[in-house]
């Protein structure tokens, strides 16, 4: 069975600073994909960034980047220059190629950006 663990239920950061959210996963598969989704108070689920396991290069999307350590099964999200609008619940998610598109989510990390 695949599992995703986010060990930080809550985090806070000052505006303009950098914060890193942790995610670890467990699988015996070799081909899989990792995602970070953001859920602001509006409850919409918004894709932040994705990473293919076969790619060694870490994905980046503007202020968002990941640190993907395949051997350690770790997939952390770094948010640079944090903005008030980044306040949200962040979910790490995982999909294996043979799962029929099933996404497995972590428990979420509530991030608060303080002015």
């Amino acid at each position: 069975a695949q599992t995703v663990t986010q060990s930080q239920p809550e985090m806070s950061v000052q505006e303009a600073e950098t914060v890193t959210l942790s995610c670890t996963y467990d699988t015996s598969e070799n081909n899989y994909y990792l995602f970070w989704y953001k859920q602001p108070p509006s409850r919409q689920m918004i894709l932040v960034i994705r990473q293919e396991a076969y790619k060694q290069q870490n994905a980046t999307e503007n202020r968002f980047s990941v640190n993907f350590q395949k051997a350690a099964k770790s997939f952390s999200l770094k948010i640079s220059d944090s903005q008030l609008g980044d306040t949200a619940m962040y979910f790490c998610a995982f999909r294996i190629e043979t799962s029929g598109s099933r996404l497995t989510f972590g428990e979420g990390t509530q991030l608060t950006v303080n002015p």
Partner: protein
Amino acid sequence: DTAVSQTPKYLVTQMGNDKSIKCEQNLGHDTMYWYKQDSKKFLKIMFSYNNKELIINETVPNRFSPKSPDKAHLNLHINSLELGDSAVYFCASSQVAGVLETQYFGPGTRLLVL
């Protein structure tokens, strides 16, 4: 220009009632999903349809019945609602294309059963 839309956004109803939640996507995707987010914010997949065919059916009570009239719509009907059904239900869609497949979520429907 909403990509994945759900109606209604809020649904308050009595125990024992039957209700439906509708989902539509205008992205041209071939796969649609229903997820349930419980009070602890944990998200779990319920169903997945690909081109109107059921491909994922997690352990969900048979009071929940998804219906896909076409590949742009996936509705969720719930019979005999129970208190434990209170949750936020998310519809999502994706184009199954291996490495590029990414799921896009609707805004969610908050269901409260009294």
